[in-house]
């Protein structure tokens, strides 16, 4: 069994039969090991070993005694545990749904409705904020959300947010974080989706047109299914990034002068456990929760899509 990823989603031509025919010789011998050696060392040092250590911490206490699942039940019983996971769930639902819907719709619209020159300009404009990821994006949005300096001040006031404090109400946080993530992240994906749409051969679209399919029909029945793999791929990466939310709420917490809870996201809670309460074992247990959650969801997405095809050798 091997994994072959992302085969020609957008390519209408069936793949060459040769690949599935007689088994080609493609051994690499000793050289293969040399090729992967450097990466394997890094993987062992910064992937496997730390994970193993985190697992060890999660199953022991600070005296090194084995505690079974007690660390897990302890952190799960913490009053901040459920809210943190709820926060992240609301944010992820919003972020994933909006990301998929908006990027795909925009890409389709840019591909089929907009003149090429304008479309390329728009794509560039959407894509540009991606350069301001991380700390920079949060800082910019701190100002965007403050009605007294924001260019969108009148809009903020119109929806009843007449002070920075009001905008930063904790219940708005999923939306704010979504806006920030969308602002920096969506453009790149729009560009990628657009490129994928561009790769759909004209013949296919022409054939659809001949059959009398309108733009909507073409989009829904031809274009979107053909970029499905990219959508799944985007979802997995967006999901993985979303569960790791740390810098953004942390900075909002600093900047909002503490209105945002310091344990808004599970990662922040783990951070507080480790560095404020000095409980590295509890922190490790929270991280393992996150890890399992991430793996399960990604596993489901991968299994339900054709993203990673499983070939029998």
């Amino acid at each position, binding site marked *: 069994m091997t994994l072959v*990823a992302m085969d020609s989603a*957008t390519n209408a031509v069936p793949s060459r039969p040769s690949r599935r025919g007689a088994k080609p010789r493609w051994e690499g011998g000793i050289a293969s090991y040399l090729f992967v050696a450097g990466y394997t060392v890094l993987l062992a040092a910064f992937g496997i070993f730390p994970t193993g250590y985190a697992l060890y911490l999660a199953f022991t206490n600070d005296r090194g005694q084995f505690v079974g699942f007690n660390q897990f039940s302890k952190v799960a019983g913490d009053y901040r545990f459920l809210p943190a996971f709820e926060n992240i769930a609301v944010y992820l639902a919003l972020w994933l749904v909006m990301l998929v819907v908006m990027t795909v719709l925009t890409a389709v619209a840019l591909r089929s409705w907009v003149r090429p020159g304008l479309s390329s300009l728009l794509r560039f404009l959407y894509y540009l904020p991606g350069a301001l990821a991380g700390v920079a994006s949060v800082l910019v949005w701190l100002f965007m959300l403050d009605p007294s300096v924001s*260019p969108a001040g009148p809009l903020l006031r119109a929806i009843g947010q007449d002070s920075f404090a009001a905008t930063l109400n904790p219940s708005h946080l999923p939306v704010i974080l979504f806006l920030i993530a969308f602002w920096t992240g969506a453009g790149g994906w729009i560009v990628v989706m657009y490129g994928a749409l561009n790769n759909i051969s004209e013949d296919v679209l022409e054939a659809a047109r001949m059959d009398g399919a309108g733009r909507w029909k073409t989009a829904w029945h031809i274009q979107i299914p053909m970029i499905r793999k990219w959508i799944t791929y985007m979802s997995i990466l967006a999901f993985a990034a979303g569960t790791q939310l740390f810098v953004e709420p942390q900075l909002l917490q600093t900047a909002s002068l503490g209105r945002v809870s310091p344990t808004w996201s599970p990662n922040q809670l783990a951070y507080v456990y480790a560095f404020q309460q000095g409980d590295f074992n509890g922190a490790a247990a929270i991280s393992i929760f996150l890890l399992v959650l991430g793996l399960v969801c990604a596993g489901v997405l991968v299994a339900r899509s054709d993203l990673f095809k499983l070939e029998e050798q």
Partner: protein
Amino acid sequence: MALFALFFVLPVIWLLLAPSKTADQVVHDWPLSFGSFSQIGHAWSHLISFQNHALLTWMRNSAIYSGGSLVLTLATSVPAGYALALTRFRGRTTLLVVTLISMIMPSATLVLPIFLEMNQFHLIGTIWSVILPFSFYPFGVYLVYIYFATSLPREIIAAARIDGCSEWQVFTRIALPLARPVVGLVAFFSFVGNWNNFFLPYLVLPNSDQFPVQVGLNQLLSSTPSFNPVAGAGLNITIPELALAIIVAILPVLVLFLFSQRSLVSGMLAGATKG
């Protein structure tokens, strides 16, 4: 569509205009007005004098960390992705699966164990405590792997072997020249990702002279009177300075972005188009 564009562009325009105004003007003038060029100079000199050119030091640090780990990332991930895609060896599937899992691993899980590990090797406080973990980039390996698996037919490799090429020659003469788009892609993601990374350097670097610029921005933020009334008072770091600092901090990434859009897309899609 236009509204959508406004959403993406407006903050950028505001950011570019803010340093041209005084802190008062930022609050009282129309948000999208332009102040004066001399004010940019003032903001710049305030910013530069913050802790004796700290901003420049941070920029230099960021360049070292991102650049150093970029070299290591490329040196390790390109051969690894190639070998995973086009050669067969014991443990290959395991390595692939582990790579996929690492891609979606919550980064914060690993920061603490990595710190302790670094300490074992007496690397804390050195540039290696940032560069080495940054160099571990499973996503890069995965991109290279997809690229080779889908765009380089194995028959070519097999034929080269029959012609008597050594494995190393196959890699350097056939695979590498074809890999340029994906190398660019990995380099772009790795550089941008590391430039913007916050959590790891925030924890492992004790000294503010060693901060990369993203961690430095955080320190600037806590020095702005409007966000930190107690500690920040009396300093010259106000909104225009902060906006200018943001611009400076993202400048390298911004330049990359300006010139990489096209190759980025072709690289991302390469696996799909050439399959």
